[in-house]
């Protein structure tokens, strides 16, 4: 291994020559050029490729089409149901006298137009066990201007009833009169910042317990207060 048996000093002069070469330095704007290149790379990474863009647009078209179809189906169902509803349907739905039950499930729903507080008095265990009871609720909404109200009844068979009221009659008594197995009463009030405030109660034609009756009474008084206002 002759080549490995060399002495560093053999090349002392050569090494001095090599060391005498001037140092080459980076240009003054090297760092800024580098950072610009890095930013360009990052920007490119963030931008979706042409294929990604095509796929995204295809998916977005698909999603839009699906949503539109779903909306159309819902509108169609709604139209069909509205056409089917008659007041006489209510009587057919519930075969026995209506009593009210309570199940205090409250929820709040807000949107740009209204704040709704709904108390649902309809889903207790006895109702769930009552196979004969039809799942119907009535919606009676009262607006501040004249308390015109509506009652909408929905059943599992998608029967929809619509009643117009000149006053607040969408109370538990109404459900007895109409023979509804369930009802939701909504009353509304206006305020400066909250154009429509609604409160709703729904109930079904299953035996009510004593505390539930108390709750229903309080609901009635609430509705009456709304009517007075």
């Amino acid at each position, binding site marked *: 291994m002759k080549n490995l048996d060399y002495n560093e000093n053999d090349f002392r*002069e050569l*090494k001095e*020559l090599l060391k005498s070469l001037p*140092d*080459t330095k*980076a240009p003054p704007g090297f760092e800024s050029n*580098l950072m610009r290149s890095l930013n360009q790379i990052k920007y490119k990474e963030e931008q979706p490729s042409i294929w990604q863009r095509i796929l995204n647009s295809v998916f977005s078209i698909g999603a839009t089409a699906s949503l539109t179809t779903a909306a159309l189906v819902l509108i169609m169902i709604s139209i069909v149901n509205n056409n089917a509803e008659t007041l006489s349907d209510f009587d057919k739905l519930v075969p026995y006298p209506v009593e009210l039950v309570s199940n205090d499930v409250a929820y709040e729903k807000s949107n740009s137009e209204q704040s709704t507080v709904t108390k649902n008095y309809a889903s207790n265990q006895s109702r769930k066990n009552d196979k004969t009871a039809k799942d119907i609720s009535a919606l009676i909404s009262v607006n501040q201007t004249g308390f015109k109200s509506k009652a909408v009844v929905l059943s599992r068979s998608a029967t929809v009833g619509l009643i117009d009221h000149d006053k607040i009659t969408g109370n538990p008594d109404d459900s007895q009169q109409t023979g509804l197995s369930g009802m939701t009463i909504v009353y509304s009030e206006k305020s400066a910042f909250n154009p429509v405030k609604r409160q709703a109660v729904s109930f079904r034609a299953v035996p009510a317990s004593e505390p539930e009756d108390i709750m229903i009474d309080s609901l009635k008084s609430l509705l009456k207060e709304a009517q007075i206002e």
Partner: protein
Amino acid sequence: MGDKQLKNFTDEELILEFQLNNTVKAYELLVQRYKNPLFNFIFKYLNDYEGTEDVVQETMIKVYINKDSYKTIAKFSTWIYTIASNLAITELKKRKRRNQISINSYGENDETMELPGTNHSPEEITDSGIKSKIIMEALQKLPEVYREVVILRDIQELSYEEIAEIKQISVGTVKSRINRGRTQLQIMLKHIYKE
């Protein structure tokens, strides 16, 4: 983390800080520390300033993008020199394909060499600029495998162990290549350093 504190960090601490906390300042300090040594190394290897700038910039970009591939068991300098060396070799291969430059073929057994500087008069050679040019010409005439290790050892002053790690070869092979390269350079530059 303060700039002053970062400035006291070792290279390894800086890259770790960049890896763990994405501290760009730590990366910038590494760029500051290595831009000139890398420029010096790559320029001596390629003998082209523009190409050198591209290779060094690409090296720094690779450090930025692949920061997580750095393992703390290695020295940062070794890692960055490895990246730069690989990029410089790729650049030379590209040039060969484009026939932009003419250099001796790549390989340890290639003994062909030309004596540079034969057109320079002794008066010219005493001029340091001309001398540098002749040395650079001689370096470019060295086979690439020798040139790189000679630059790393005699100009960049890296240890044999570091060079072995950068080139992924044994220390013995490094020594052998350096010896052969020096011998060839000595022959090529005899007329200069005997002045």
